[in-house]
Protein backbone atom coordinates (compact mmCIF):
# COMPACT_ATOMS: atom_id res chain seq x y z
CA UNK A 1 0.00 0.00 0.00
CA UNK A 2 1.29 3.44 -0.95
CA UNK A 3 0.91 5.12 2.45
CA UNK A 4 2.92 8.19 1.41
CA UNK A 5 0.49 8.85 -1.45
CA UNK A 6 -2.54 8.60 0.84
CA UNK A 7 -0.85 10.99 3.29
CA UNK A 8 -0.02 13.39 0.45
CA UNK A 9 -3.56 13.52 -0.93
CA UNK A 10 -5.04 13.81 2.55
CA UNK A 11 -2.65 16.59 3.56
CA UNK A 12 -3.21 18.41 0.25
CA UNK A 13 -6.99 18.36 0.77
CA UNK A 14 -6.72 19.43 4.40
CA UNK A 15 -4.45 22.31 3.35
CA UNK A 16 -7.19 23.40 0.95
CA UNK A 17 -9.60 23.43 3.91
CA UNK A 18 -7.24 25.64 5.89
CA UNK A 19 -6.94 28.07 2.98
CA UNK A 20 -10.72 28.43 2.85
CA UNK A 21 -11.29 28.50 6.59
CA UNK A 22 -13.78 31.36 6.54
CA UNK A 23 -16.20 29.81 4.11
CA UNK A 24 -15.60 26.30 5.42
CA UNK A 25 -16.20 26.86 9.09
CA UNK A 26 -17.65 30.28 9.73
CA UNK A 27 -20.51 30.12 7.25
CA UNK A 28 -22.05 26.83 8.50
CA UNK A 29 -21.75 28.09 12.09
CA UNK A 30 -23.54 31.33 11.20
CA UNK A 31 -26.30 29.57 9.25
CA UNK A 32 -26.86 27.01 12.03
CA UNK A 33 -27.05 29.78 14.62
CA UNK A 34 -29.72 31.42 12.47
CA UNK A 35 -31.73 28.16 12.42
CA UNK A 36 -31.55 27.98 16.19
CA UNK A 37 -32.61 31.58 16.61
CA UNK A 38 -35.52 31.29 14.19
CA UNK A 39 -36.73 27.71 14.73
CA UNK A 40 -35.43 27.10 18.22
CA UNK A 41 -36.02 30.36 20.04
CA UNK A 42 -38.64 32.29 18.06
CA UNK A 43 -40.92 29.52 16.72
CA UNK A 44 -39.74 26.75 19.05
CA UNK A 45 -40.96 28.55 22.15
CA UNK A 46 -44.52 28.25 20.79
CA UNK A 47 -44.19 24.63 19.69
CA UNK A 48 -45.02 21.77 22.05
CA UNK A 49 -42.37 19.32 23.16
CA UNK A 50 -42.06 16.35 20.82
CA UNK A 51 -41.99 13.01 22.66
CA UNK A 52 -40.83 14.85 25.76
CA UNK A 53 -37.98 16.71 24.03
CA UNK A 54 -38.09 20.53 23.75
CA UNK A 55 -38.38 21.59 20.09
CA UNK A 56 -35.05 23.47 20.07
CA UNK A 57 -33.17 20.35 21.17
CA UNK A 58 -35.28 18.11 18.91
CA UNK A 59 -34.04 19.86 15.74
CA UNK A 60 -30.33 19.86 16.76
CA UNK A 61 -29.45 16.37 15.41
CA UNK A 62 -31.24 17.19 12.13
CA UNK A 63 -29.31 20.44 11.77
CA UNK A 64 -26.01 18.68 12.43
CA UNK A 65 -26.93 16.12 9.76
CA UNK A 66 -27.90 18.89 7.32
CA UNK A 67 -24.49 20.52 7.73
CA UNK A 68 -22.65 17.20 7.68
CA UNK A 69 -24.35 16.12 4.44
CA UNK A 70 -23.72 19.44 2.72
CA UNK A 71 -20.10 19.61 3.81
CA UNK A 72 -19.27 16.03 2.95
CA UNK A 73 -20.92 16.10 -0.47
CA UNK A 74 -19.41 19.51 -1.23
CA UNK A 75 -15.88 18.57 -0.20
CA UNK A 76 -15.99 15.08 -1.64
CA UNK A 77 -17.17 16.33 -5.02
CA UNK A 78 -14.98 19.42 -5.26
CA UNK A 79 -11.83 17.58 -4.17
CA UNK A 80 -11.87 15.31 -7.24
CA UNK A 81 -13.71 17.62 -9.65
CA UNK A 82 -11.16 20.42 -9.40
CA UNK A 83 -8.15 18.33 -10.56
CA UNK A 84 -10.33 17.12 -13.44
CA UNK A 85 -11.23 20.69 -14.29
CA UNK A 86 -7.65 22.03 -14.15
CA UNK A 87 -6.08 18.90 -15.66
CA UNK A 88 -3.88 18.11 -12.66
CA UNK A 89 -5.69 14.75 -12.46
CA UNK A 90 -2.96 13.47 -14.83
CA UNK A 91 -0.68 13.30 -11.84
CA UNK A 92 -3.04 11.14 -9.81
CA UNK A 93 -3.68 8.83 -12.78
CA UNK A 94 0.01 8.39 -13.57
CA UNK A 95 1.11 7.81 -9.97
CA UNK A 96 1.69 4.33 -8.54
CA UNK A 97 -1.51 4.39 -6.50
CA UNK A 98 -4.58 2.16 -6.49
CA UNK A 99 -8.24 3.14 -6.49
CA UNK A 100 -8.55 2.32 -2.83
CA UNK A 101 -5.68 4.63 -1.94
CA UNK A 102 -7.06 7.50 -4.00
CA UNK A 103 -10.48 7.11 -2.38
CA UNK A 104 -9.02 6.88 1.15
CA UNK A 105 -7.07 10.11 0.55
CA UNK A 106 -9.87 12.21 -0.93
CA UNK A 107 -12.84 10.76 0.92
CA UNK A 108 -10.92 10.57 4.20
CA UNK A 109 -10.13 14.28 3.98
CA UNK A 110 -13.70 15.23 2.99
CA UNK A 111 -15.14 13.16 5.84
CA UNK A 112 -12.63 14.60 8.33
CA UNK A 113 -13.62 18.11 7.39
CA UNK A 114 -17.31 17.22 7.64
CA UNK A 115 -16.77 15.71 11.07
CA UNK A 116 -14.82 18.73 12.31
CA UNK A 117 -17.55 21.09 11.16
CA UNK A 118 -20.29 18.78 12.47
CA UNK A 119 -18.60 18.83 15.87
CA UNK A 120 -18.40 22.62 15.78
CA UNK A 121 -22.13 22.75 14.96
CA UNK A 122 -22.84 20.40 17.87
CA UNK A 123 -20.87 22.73 20.17
CA UNK A 124 -22.74 25.75 18.72
CA UNK A 125 -26.08 23.98 19.29
CA UNK A 126 -25.23 23.30 22.92
CA UNK A 127 -24.90 27.07 23.42
CA UNK A 128 -28.57 27.49 22.47
CA UNK A 129 -30.21 24.36 23.89
CA UNK A 130 -29.57 21.62 26.44
CA UNK A 131 -28.20 18.57 24.67
CA UNK A 132 -27.66 15.18 26.22
CA UNK A 133 -26.21 12.21 24.36
CA UNK A 134 -27.84 8.98 25.55
CA UNK A 135 -25.81 6.60 23.35
CA UNK A 136 -22.43 8.19 22.58
CA UNK A 137 -21.03 5.14 20.77
CA UNK A 138 -24.03 4.92 18.43
CA UNK A 139 -23.93 8.68 17.97
CA UNK A 140 -20.28 8.53 16.85
CA UNK A 141 -21.04 5.53 14.64
CA UNK A 142 -23.89 7.34 12.86
CA UNK A 143 -21.78 10.47 12.65
CA UNK A 144 -18.73 8.75 11.10
CA UNK A 145 -20.62 6.37 8.80
CA UNK A 146 -22.75 9.23 7.45
CA UNK A 147 -19.68 11.40 6.92
CA UNK A 148 -17.84 8.65 5.02
CA UNK A 149 -20.88 7.58 2.96
CA UNK A 150 -21.76 11.07 1.83
CA UNK A 151 -18.15 12.07 1.17
CA UNK A 152 -18.00 9.03 -1.09
CA UNK A 153 -21.31 10.04 -2.67
CA UNK A 154 -19.85 13.51 -3.25
CA UNK A 155 -16.71 11.95 -4.74
CA UNK A 156 -18.89 10.13 -7.29
CA UNK A 157 -20.69 13.35 -8.16
CA UNK A 158 -17.30 15.00 -8.65
CA UNK A 159 -16.27 12.29 -11.10
CA UNK A 160 -19.60 12.31 -12.92
CA UNK A 161 -19.91 16.10 -13.22
CA UNK A 162 -18.68 17.55 -16.48
CA UNK A 163 -19.16 21.18 -15.49
CA UNK A 164 -19.78 23.33 -12.43
CA UNK A 165 -23.54 23.25 -12.98
CA UNK A 166 -23.64 19.47 -12.72
CA UNK A 167 -21.31 19.67 -9.74
CA UNK A 168 -23.77 21.88 -7.87
CA UNK A 169 -27.10 20.47 -8.98
CA UNK A 170 -27.31 17.58 -6.52
CA UNK A 171 -26.06 19.47 -3.44
CA UNK A 172 -28.35 22.40 -4.30
CA UNK A 173 -31.50 20.72 -5.60
CA UNK A 174 -31.59 17.20 -4.21
CA UNK A 175 -30.07 17.34 -0.75
CA UNK A 176 -32.10 20.19 0.86
CA UNK A 177 -35.53 18.66 0.02
CA UNK A 178 -34.38 15.27 1.30
CA UNK A 179 -33.14 16.81 4.51
CA UNK A 180 -36.13 19.09 5.05
CA UNK A 181 -38.60 16.30 4.23
CA UNK A 182 -36.59 13.73 6.16
CA UNK A 183 -37.91 14.69 9.57
CA UNK A 184 -35.13 17.12 10.51
CA UNK A 185 -37.59 19.66 11.89
CA UNK A 186 -40.53 17.42 12.84
CA UNK A 187 -41.49 13.89 13.69
CA UNK A 188 -43.05 12.14 10.71
CA UNK A 189 -45.93 11.13 13.02
CA UNK A 190 -47.15 14.68 12.42
CA UNK A 191 -47.63 13.95 8.69
CA UNK A 192 -50.75 12.50 7.05
CA UNK A 193 -50.44 8.69 6.51
CA UNK A 194 -49.67 9.03 2.77
CA UNK A 195 -46.70 11.33 3.35
CA UNK A 196 -45.52 9.17 6.21
CA UNK A 197 -45.32 6.26 3.75
CA UNK A 198 -43.53 8.42 1.15
CA UNK A 199 -41.03 9.57 3.78
CA UNK A 200 -39.85 6.00 4.25
CA UNK A 201 -38.33 6.14 0.77
CA UNK A 202 -36.17 9.08 1.83
CA UNK A 203 -32.76 7.80 2.99
CA UNK A 204 -32.14 10.94 5.03
CA UNK A 205 -35.10 10.03 7.28
CA UNK A 206 -33.14 7.03 8.54
CA UNK A 207 -29.99 9.05 9.15
CA UNK A 208 -31.76 11.79 11.08
CA UNK A 209 -33.95 9.36 13.00
CA UNK A 210 -31.06 7.12 14.01
CA UNK A 211 -28.86 10.07 14.87
CA UNK A 212 -31.61 11.67 16.97
CA UNK A 213 -32.21 8.36 18.72
CA UNK A 214 -28.57 8.30 19.85
CA UNK A 215 -29.21 11.67 21.55
CA UNK A 216 -32.73 11.45 22.96
CA UNK A 217 -33.82 7.82 22.51
CA UNK A 218 -36.75 8.91 20.34
CA UNK A 219 -36.97 7.73 16.73
CA UNK A 220 -39.28 7.58 13.72
CA UNK A 221 -37.83 4.22 12.71
CA UNK A 222 -36.00 1.48 14.58
CA UNK A 223 -32.37 2.69 15.07
CA UNK A 224 -30.96 -0.65 13.92
CA UNK A 225 -32.86 -0.33 10.65
CA UNK A 226 -31.40 3.17 10.37
CA UNK A 227 -27.91 1.80 10.90
CA UNK A 228 -28.48 -0.94 8.33
CA UNK A 229 -29.64 1.65 5.77
CA UNK A 230 -26.53 3.78 6.35
CA UNK A 231 -24.27 0.75 5.95
CA UNK A 232 -26.16 -0.31 2.80
CA UNK A 233 -25.77 3.18 1.34
CA UNK A 234 -22.04 3.10 2.10
CA UNK A 235 -21.73 -0.32 0.43
CA UNK A 236 -23.59 0.94 -2.65
CA UNK A 237 -21.30 3.99 -2.91
CA UNK A 238 -18.21 1.78 -2.50
CA UNK A 239 -19.26 -0.55 -5.30
CA UNK A 240 -20.06 2.31 -7.70
CA UNK A 241 -16.68 3.88 -6.91
CA UNK A 242 -14.92 0.57 -7.56
CA UNK A 243 -16.71 0.33 -10.92
CA UNK A 244 -15.69 3.90 -11.82
CA UNK A 245 -12.03 3.15 -11.33
CA UNK A 246 -12.16 -0.24 -12.99
CA UNK A 247 -13.66 1.20 -16.15
CA UNK A 248 -12.00 4.61 -15.94
CA UNK A 249 -15.47 6.18 -16.35
CA UNK A 250 -15.06 9.92 -17.05
CA UNK A 251 -11.48 9.73 -15.80
CA UNK A 252 -9.56 8.09 -18.60
CA UNK A 253 -9.96 7.97 -22.34
Amino acid at each position, binding site marked *: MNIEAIKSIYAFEMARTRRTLMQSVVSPVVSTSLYFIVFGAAIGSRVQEIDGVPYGAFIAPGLIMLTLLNQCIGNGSFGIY*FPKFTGTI*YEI*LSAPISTVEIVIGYVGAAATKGLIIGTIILATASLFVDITIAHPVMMVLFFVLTAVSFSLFGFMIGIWAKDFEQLNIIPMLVVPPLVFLGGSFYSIDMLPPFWQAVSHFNPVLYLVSGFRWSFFEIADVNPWISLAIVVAFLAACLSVTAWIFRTGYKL*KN
Partner: protein
Amino acid sequence: MAPIVRIENLTKNYASGFQALKGVSLDIEEGEILALLGPNGAGKTTMISIVCGIVTPSSGRVTVAGHDVVKDFRRTREIIGLVPQELTLDAFETVFNTVAFSRGLHGRKPDPALIEKILRELSLWDKKDTVLRHLSGGMRRRVLIAKALSYEPKVLFLDEPTAGVDVTLRKEMWQLVERLRATGVTIILTTHYIEEAEEIADRIGVINRGEILLVEDKAELMKKLGRKQLTVELSEPLSAVPDALSAYSLRLGEGGQSLVYDYDTAGERTGITGLLSALAEQGLRLKDVSTEQSSLEDIFVELVGEAK
Protein backbone atom coordinates in the same frame (compact mmCIF):
# COMPACT_ATOMS: atom_id res chain seq x y z
CA MET B 1 20.32 -5.71 -22.91
CA ALA B 2 16.51 -5.72 -22.82
CA PRO B 3 14.95 -2.39 -23.70
CA ILE B 4 13.71 -0.35 -20.73
CA VAL B 5 10.46 0.48 -22.52
CA ARG B 6 8.92 -1.93 -25.03
CA ILE B 7 5.85 -0.92 -26.97
CA GLU B 8 4.23 -3.70 -29.01
CA ASN B 9 1.46 -3.26 -31.60
CA LEU B 10 -0.16 -0.48 -29.65
CA THR B 11 -3.47 0.82 -30.96
CA LYS B 12 -5.83 3.42 -29.60
CA ASN B 13 -9.30 4.19 -30.89
CA TYR B 14 -11.00 7.07 -29.13
CA ALA B 15 -14.75 6.98 -28.47
CA SER B 16 -15.17 9.57 -31.23
CA GLY B 17 -13.96 6.95 -33.71
CA PHE B 18 -10.59 8.65 -34.19
CA GLN B 19 -7.75 6.16 -34.44
CA ALA B 20 -4.82 7.85 -32.71
CA LEU B 21 -2.42 4.90 -32.87
CA LYS B 22 -2.37 2.22 -35.56
CA GLY B 23 -0.24 -0.61 -34.23
CA VAL B 24 2.87 1.18 -33.01
CA SER B 25 5.91 -0.81 -31.90
CA LEU B 26 8.98 0.79 -30.40
CA ASP B 27 11.87 -0.26 -28.17
CA ILE B 28 13.56 2.34 -26.00
CA GLU B 29 17.00 1.49 -24.67
CA GLU B 30 18.08 2.26 -21.14
CA GLY B 31 20.00 5.50 -20.79
CA GLU B 32 19.25 6.86 -24.25
CA ILE B 33 17.60 10.09 -25.31
CA LEU B 34 14.92 9.44 -27.88
CA ALA B 35 13.27 12.32 -29.68
CA LEU B 36 9.86 11.75 -31.21
CA LEU B 37 9.12 14.13 -34.01
CA GLY B 38 5.69 14.56 -35.48
CA PRO B 39 3.09 17.12 -36.43
CA ASN B 40 0.14 17.96 -34.18
CA GLY B 41 -2.27 15.05 -33.80
CA ALA B 42 0.35 12.50 -34.86
CA GLY B 43 -0.23 10.34 -31.77
CA LYS B 44 2.81 11.35 -29.71
CA THR B 45 0.89 12.39 -26.61
CA THR B 46 -1.49 9.43 -26.84
CA MET B 47 1.47 7.04 -26.93
CA ILE B 48 3.12 8.68 -23.91
CA SER B 49 -0.18 8.81 -22.04
CA ILE B 50 -0.67 5.07 -22.48
CA VAL B 51 2.82 4.31 -21.15
CA CYS B 52 2.15 6.54 -18.13
CA GLY B 53 -1.32 5.13 -17.40
CA ILE B 54 -3.47 8.15 -18.29
CA VAL B 55 -5.02 6.61 -21.39
CA THR B 56 -6.17 2.99 -21.71
CA PRO B 57 -4.88 1.26 -24.86
CA SER B 58 -7.36 -0.41 -27.26
CA SER B 59 -4.93 -3.23 -27.93
CA GLY B 60 -1.24 -4.02 -27.72
CA ARG B 61 1.11 -4.11 -24.80
CA VAL B 62 3.64 -1.87 -23.10
CA THR B 63 6.28 -3.01 -20.65
CA VAL B 64 8.63 -0.83 -18.62
CA ALA B 65 11.67 -2.54 -17.08
CA GLY B 66 9.93 -5.83 -17.92
CA HIS B 67 6.68 -4.97 -16.11
CA ASP B 68 3.32 -4.59 -17.83
CA VAL B 69 2.05 -1.00 -17.48
CA VAL B 70 -1.53 -2.14 -16.89
CA LYS B 71 -1.17 -5.25 -14.72
CA ASP B 72 1.92 -4.18 -12.84
CA PHE B 73 1.22 -0.44 -12.78
CA ARG B 74 2.80 0.18 -9.39
CA ARG B 75 6.19 -1.08 -10.50
CA THR B 76 6.15 0.82 -13.78
CA ARG B 77 4.78 4.12 -12.50
CA GLU B 78 7.33 4.21 -9.70
CA ILE B 79 10.08 4.63 -12.26
CA ILE B 80 8.29 6.74 -14.87
CA GLY B 81 8.28 10.50 -14.73
CA LEU B 82 6.01 12.64 -16.88
CA VAL B 83 6.19 16.30 -17.79
CA PRO B 84 2.93 17.00 -19.61
CA GLN B 85 2.54 19.31 -22.55
CA GLU B 86 -0.19 21.45 -20.98
CA LEU B 87 0.80 23.73 -18.12
CA THR B 88 -1.57 22.04 -15.70
CA LEU B 89 -0.91 23.09 -12.13
CA ASP B 90 -3.05 23.59 -9.08
CA ALA B 91 -3.70 27.34 -8.92
CA PHE B 92 -3.59 27.93 -5.18
CA GLU B 93 -0.72 25.72 -4.04
CA THR B 94 2.86 26.95 -3.50
CA VAL B 95 5.82 25.81 -5.60
CA PHE B 96 7.49 23.87 -2.79
CA ASN B 97 4.31 22.14 -1.67
CA THR B 98 3.28 21.04 -5.14
CA VAL B 99 6.71 19.50 -5.75
CA ALA B 100 6.63 17.76 -2.35
CA PHE B 101 3.12 16.51 -3.19
CA SER B 102 4.38 14.81 -6.36
CA ARG B 103 7.11 13.05 -4.42
CA GLY B 104 4.59 11.75 -1.90
CA LEU B 105 2.20 10.55 -4.61
CA HIS B 106 4.98 8.32 -5.89
CA GLY B 107 5.38 6.72 -2.49
CA ARG B 108 8.65 8.43 -1.59
CA LYS B 109 9.32 9.69 1.92
CA PRO B 110 9.57 13.50 2.28
CA ASP B 111 13.04 14.82 1.40
CA PRO B 112 13.13 18.63 1.69
CA ALA B 113 16.88 18.71 0.94
CA LEU B 114 16.36 16.97 -2.41
CA ILE B 115 13.48 19.27 -3.31
CA GLU B 116 15.63 22.28 -2.45
CA LYS B 117 18.37 20.93 -4.72
CA ILE B 118 15.92 20.42 -7.61
CA LEU B 119 14.36 23.85 -7.16
CA ARG B 120 17.78 25.50 -7.07
CA GLU B 121 18.85 23.64 -10.18
CA LEU B 122 15.76 24.91 -12.01
CA SER B 123 16.21 28.48 -10.67
CA LEU B 124 12.98 28.16 -8.70
CA TRP B 125 14.28 28.31 -5.14
CA ASP B 126 13.50 31.99 -4.63
CA LYS B 127 9.93 31.26 -5.78
CA LYS B 128 9.41 28.30 -3.47
CA ASP B 129 6.65 30.03 -1.47
CA THR B 130 5.00 31.66 -4.47
CA VAL B 131 1.48 30.57 -5.28
CA LEU B 132 1.45 28.79 -8.65
CA ARG B 133 -1.07 31.00 -10.41
CA HIS B 134 1.30 33.96 -9.98
CA LEU B 135 4.04 32.29 -12.02
CA SER B 136 4.89 33.02 -15.64
CA GLY B 137 4.57 30.35 -18.34
CA GLY B 138 8.29 29.54 -18.32
CA MET B 139 8.29 29.22 -14.53
CA ARG B 140 5.27 26.92 -14.64
CA ARG B 141 7.08 24.73 -17.15
CA ARG B 142 10.02 24.49 -14.73
CA VAL B 143 7.69 23.61 -11.86
CA LEU B 144 6.25 20.74 -13.91
CA ILE B 145 9.77 19.47 -14.50
CA ALA B 146 10.62 19.83 -10.80
CA LYS B 147 7.51 17.82 -9.95
CA ALA B 148 8.58 15.00 -12.25
CA LEU B 149 12.15 15.01 -10.90
CA SER B 150 11.00 15.04 -7.27
CA TYR B 151 10.53 11.27 -7.22
CA GLU B 152 13.76 10.48 -9.07
CA PRO B 153 12.35 8.64 -12.11
CA LYS B 154 14.49 6.29 -14.20
CA VAL B 155 12.49 6.96 -17.35
CA LEU B 156 11.40 10.52 -18.05
CA PHE B 157 8.83 11.55 -20.65
CA LEU B 158 9.00 15.17 -21.71
CA ASP B 159 5.97 16.04 -23.82
CA GLU B 160 7.00 19.08 -25.84
CA PRO B 161 9.10 20.53 -23.04
CA THR B 162 10.18 23.57 -25.01
CA ALA B 163 6.88 24.52 -26.65
CA GLY B 164 6.34 28.23 -26.09
CA VAL B 165 9.57 28.59 -24.16
CA ASP B 166 12.14 31.35 -24.80
CA VAL B 167 15.59 30.65 -26.20
CA THR B 168 17.42 30.90 -22.86
CA LEU B 169 15.10 28.47 -21.13
CA ARG B 170 15.26 26.11 -24.08
CA LYS B 171 19.07 26.01 -23.82
CA GLU B 172 18.76 25.41 -20.07
CA MET B 173 16.37 22.54 -20.70
CA TRP B 174 18.83 20.94 -23.08
CA GLN B 175 21.58 21.22 -20.46
CA LEU B 176 19.27 19.71 -17.87
CA VAL B 177 18.47 16.79 -20.17
CA GLU B 178 22.21 16.22 -20.61
CA ARG B 179 22.79 16.24 -16.85
CA LEU B 180 19.93 13.80 -16.30
CA ARG B 181 21.29 11.49 -18.93
CA ALA B 182 24.65 11.57 -17.18
CA THR B 183 22.92 10.14 -14.10
CA GLY B 184 21.52 7.27 -16.17
CA VAL B 185 17.96 8.54 -16.75
CA THR B 186 16.32 7.41 -20.00
CA ILE B 187 14.64 10.36 -21.69
CA ILE B 188 11.89 10.38 -24.27
CA LEU B 189 10.91 13.77 -25.56
CA THR B 190 8.44 14.86 -28.15
CA THR B 191 9.04 17.98 -30.12
CA HIS B 192 8.12 19.98 -33.17
CA TYR B 193 11.59 21.47 -33.31
CA ILE B 194 13.92 19.52 -35.52
CA GLU B 195 16.99 21.35 -34.26
CA GLU B 196 16.05 20.25 -30.75
CA ALA B 197 16.11 16.61 -31.80
CA GLU B 198 19.40 17.19 -33.62
CA GLU B 199 20.89 18.91 -30.58
CA ILE B 200 20.16 16.42 -27.83
CA ALA B 201 18.81 13.09 -29.07
CA ASP B 202 20.68 9.81 -29.53
CA ARG B 203 17.91 8.40 -31.66
CA ILE B 204 15.16 10.06 -33.57
CA GLY B 205 11.71 8.67 -34.29
CA VAL B 206 9.25 10.18 -36.70
CA ILE B 207 5.57 9.60 -36.01
CA ASN B 208 2.63 10.68 -38.12
CA ARG B 209 -1.04 9.74 -38.22
CA GLY B 210 -0.62 7.10 -35.57
CA GLU B 211 2.28 5.32 -37.24
CA ILE B 212 6.01 5.33 -36.65
CA LEU B 213 7.62 6.13 -39.98
CA LEU B 214 11.22 5.88 -38.94
CA VAL B 215 13.41 5.32 -35.90
CA GLU B 216 17.09 5.77 -36.47
CA ASP B 217 20.32 6.60 -34.69
CA LYS B 218 21.02 10.26 -34.97
CA ALA B 219 24.53 9.40 -36.16
CA GLU B 220 23.04 7.40 -39.05
CA LEU B 221 20.72 10.23 -39.88
CA MET B 222 23.57 12.68 -39.70
CA LYS B 223 25.44 10.59 -42.26
CA LYS B 224 22.51 11.05 -44.55
CA LEU B 225 22.59 14.69 -43.68
CA GLY B 226 26.31 14.70 -44.45
CA ARG B 227 25.53 13.89 -48.09
CA LYS B 228 25.89 16.92 -50.25
CA GLN B 229 25.19 17.55 -53.87
CA LEU B 230 27.26 19.77 -56.15
CA THR B 231 25.51 20.98 -59.28
CA VAL B 232 27.54 22.46 -62.08
CA GLU B 233 25.53 24.44 -64.62
CA LEU B 234 27.07 24.25 -68.07
CA SER B 235 27.16 26.93 -70.76
CA GLU B 236 26.72 24.33 -73.53
CA PRO B 237 24.49 21.26 -73.04
CA LEU B 238 26.05 17.78 -73.17
CA SER B 239 24.45 14.65 -74.59
CA ALA B 240 26.34 12.32 -72.23
CA VAL B 241 28.85 12.47 -69.36
CA PRO B 242 32.34 12.50 -70.96
CA ASP B 243 34.25 9.21 -70.40
CA ALA B 244 37.19 11.06 -68.87
CA LEU B 245 34.92 12.04 -65.96
CA SER B 246 33.59 8.52 -65.29
CA ALA B 247 35.64 8.25 -62.06
CA TYR B 248 33.36 10.82 -60.43
CA SER B 249 30.07 8.98 -61.04
CA LEU B 250 28.41 12.13 -62.31
CA ARG B 251 24.80 12.33 -63.37
CA LEU B 252 23.62 14.44 -66.22
CA GLY B 253 21.03 17.02 -65.21
CA GLU B 254 17.86 17.88 -67.11
CA GLY B 255 18.44 18.72 -70.77
CA GLY B 256 22.15 18.01 -70.37
CA GLN B 257 22.52 21.53 -68.97
CA SER B 258 24.17 20.43 -65.74
CA LEU B 259 26.33 17.81 -64.07
CA VAL B 260 25.41 16.57 -60.60
CA TYR B 261 28.05 15.25 -58.21
CA ASP B 262 27.25 13.53 -54.85
CA TYR B 263 29.89 13.71 -52.17
CA ASP B 264 30.31 13.23 -48.46
CA THR B 265 31.39 16.17 -46.31
CA ALA B 266 32.27 13.77 -43.52
CA GLY B 267 34.97 12.17 -45.72
CA GLU B 268 38.54 13.50 -45.71
CA ARG B 269 38.55 14.20 -49.42
CA THR B 270 35.51 15.52 -51.14
CA GLY B 271 37.03 15.21 -54.62
CA ILE B 272 35.78 18.66 -55.58
CA THR B 273 39.19 20.06 -56.52
CA GLY B 274 39.95 17.11 -58.79
CA LEU B 275 36.51 17.31 -60.39
CA LEU B 276 36.78 21.01 -61.13
CA SER B 277 40.25 20.58 -62.70
CA ALA B 278 38.98 17.64 -64.76
CA LEU B 279 36.05 19.75 -65.98
CA ALA B 280 38.50 22.48 -67.03
CA GLU B 281 40.71 19.92 -68.81
CA GLN B 282 37.69 18.76 -70.79
CA GLY B 283 37.24 22.35 -71.88
CA LEU B 284 33.76 22.59 -70.39
CA ARG B 285 32.65 26.16 -69.66
CA LEU B 286 30.80 26.57 -66.37
CA LYS B 287 27.87 28.92 -65.99
CA ASP B 288 27.26 28.43 -62.26
CA VAL B 289 28.09 26.16 -59.34
CA SER B 290 25.81 25.38 -56.39
CA THR B 291 25.70 22.94 -53.48
CA GLU B 292 22.77 21.55 -51.55
CA GLN B 293 22.49 19.65 -48.29
CA SER B 294 19.55 17.49 -47.28
CA SER B 295 18.52 18.36 -43.73
CA LEU B 296 16.59 16.41 -41.14
CA GLU B 297 13.80 18.79 -41.96
CA ASP B 298 13.80 17.61 -45.60
CA ILE B 299 13.72 13.99 -44.49
CA PHE B 300 10.91 14.77 -42.08
CA VAL B 301 8.85 16.71 -44.58
CA GLU B 302 9.41 13.98 -47.16
CA LEU B 303 8.34 11.20 -44.77
CA VAL B 304 5.32 13.05 -43.48
CA GLY B 305 4.42 14.16 -46.97
CA GLU B 306 4.61 10.60 -48.33
CA ALA B 307 2.32 9.40 -45.60
CA LYS B 308 -0.36 11.84 -46.73
